[in-house]
């Protein structure tokens, strides 16, 4: 009997359900869904790094870079979503590839902080650039899809479908990749790097590959968010608190399963949206409080709830 991968099946079912749901969803649900998919993708990149034992407090760098690349391209007349998102993803990937040569030499808190330093450089550059609207940012028009130019609500519907297809491919790809030799090297590097080197693999190369991947998906997430909101600004795209939010989502999800990052991102979005709507004075309080609760009482993230449930069942 052939081995069937439960995660791939689960992701595929979720994908099909969401594709259909796209046409019936209320606008606010679709918006939260879009945000969750995009932020979940970024968290997926962080999850890959985390499995290697690295945490980055600066992935707003790639998120913001992707978002601003896409947004700047609209200023010179490009509006096609495929092109904008591709450009945002690729530019962030190239940046990650270049910085990766330096960053792959660092571990633990130094890795986290050097990432933050680079992200704050980007933040500083954006804030000081009047042409890019400084701290106010600037807005971009609705995207087109290979000649199809939707209007009104149809834009979000199309964008949601677009995002869904790409995140599905990326997520299944990551899941399958984790099972390959290079993929499973993550855990080995995390456990004992020197032994990995003795076995003839280069730990730095393993880390570099993961790093570029995390940069690519962060750029992807950034470009999607820029298109979804129709606005870019440094404080919600490139500041260090944004990087903190991504790590928050990763902790919320746990590193157990690739699909969990989207659930984590959805929970994060819901907490934030509702806290902001019903208690605007204390939304950070609620956000921080839930993060603390997760850290204290649910150390392996939301996903551990499922596995606990399964264990008690079997």
């Amino acid at each position, binding site marked *: 009997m052939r081995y069937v991968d439960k995660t791939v099946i689960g992701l595929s079912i979720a994908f099909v359900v969401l594709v259909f749901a796209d046409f019936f969803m209320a606008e606010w649900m679709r918006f939260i869904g879009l945000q969750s998919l995009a932020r979940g993708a970024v968290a997926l990149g962080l999850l890959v790094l985390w499995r290697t034992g690295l945490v980055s407090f600066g992935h707003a760098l790639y998120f913001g870079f992707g978002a601003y690349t896409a947004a700047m391209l609209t200023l010179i007349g490009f509006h096609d979503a495929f092109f904008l998102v591709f450009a945002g993803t690729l530019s962030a990937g190239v940046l990650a590839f270049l910085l990766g040569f330096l960053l792959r030499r660092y571990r633990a808190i130094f890795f986290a902080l050097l990432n933050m330093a680079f992200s704050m450089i980007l933040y500083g550059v954006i804030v*000081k650039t009047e042409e890019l609207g400084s701290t106010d940012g600037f807005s971009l028009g609705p995207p087109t899809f290979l000649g199809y130019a939707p209007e009104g609500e149809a834009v979000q519907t199309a964008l949601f479908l677009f995002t869904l297809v790409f995140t599905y491919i990326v997520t299944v790809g990551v899941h399958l990749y984790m099972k390959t030799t290079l993929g499973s090297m993550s855990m080995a590097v995390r456990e004992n790097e020197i032994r990995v080197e003795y076995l003839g693999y280069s730990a730095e190369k393993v880390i570099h590959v993961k790093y570029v991947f995390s940069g690519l998906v962060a750029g992807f997430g950034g470009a999607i968010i820029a298109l979804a909101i129709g606005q870019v600004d440094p404080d919600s795209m490139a500041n260090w608190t944004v990087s903190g939010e991504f790590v928050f989502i990763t902790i919320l999800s746990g590193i157990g399963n690739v699909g969990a990052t989207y659930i984590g991102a959805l929970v994060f979005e819901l907490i934030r949206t509702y806290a902001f709507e019903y208690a605007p004075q204390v939304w950070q309080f609620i956000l921080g409080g839930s*993060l603390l609760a997760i850290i204290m009482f649910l150390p392996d993230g939301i996903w551990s709830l499922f596995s606990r449930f399964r264990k008690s069942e079997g």
Partner: protein
Amino acid sequence: MQELIVILVDGLVFSSYLFMVAVGLTVIFGVMKILNVTHGSFYAFGAYMSATLIGAYYETDLPEFGGFLAIFAAALIIGVFFGVVLERCLLRFLYHRDEHIIVLATFAMFLVLEDVLLMIWGTDPYYAFEPMALLGSVDIVELTFDVYSLTLIGLAGVVCLGLWLGLTKTKWGKLLLAVIFDREISQAMGINVTVVFTATFVIGAIMGALGGAYIAPTISVSPGIGVEVIVLAFAVVVIGGMGSIPGALIGSLLVGISRAAAVHKFPEIELFVIYAIMALVLAIRPEGLFAPAQARKI
């Protein structure tokens, strides 16, 4: 030449400010190996408390110079309160966890405290300029500096000297150094590491609060001051080497003077220059300029 002096004085003032906020962070990291994001909240709470106390003090008819006591009182109140509460009620449950998790827990606490701050003091800015007005200003090569800012240099010097003497010349300091060097062996030798941890965290918190409290008269105390200061303090600490007090000193001088130079010469790269220095230093010396050597584990 004149510009050089201005840059130097400006840079020294800014360096002292950076040192005040960074030294608490580095002390906490050195002993506890915790990168404490909540330090930004200590700073902000210190500033608000100081503005409030100064305001209340000048309502009374007490002697004018007593306003300075209000500043130190504010730092002590905030530092002791938050230091003890956070360490005893939160951090001690997390010591066995990953260092990233602890950073994130302090980040969560930072978010919580940001809103607590708003609940207590609201969104309106506070001004407490009386101590600054009291000291007046002085002319250095045709440019006016206010004396209050210059006293910051003195305060940073006193703090630096005090920490150095405390660490190297007293029994308590030596115990602390032992814990920094090897936590487990110190515990085996009978040092009460729990008490050392609480004491360190409280001292670090007082430093952070003092930074905010002393700065309060020179700025408009408004929401968001904690977010800015925490990344600045991170940069300084990382440049100097995390956990090293001389490192924090050199780091803040380096960052302070380069920023002053940038402000006067190329204002558009002012924000950028700090992190560029940080990235550059880390690229050449990954552990920072003054970090102690670490054994490699196999």
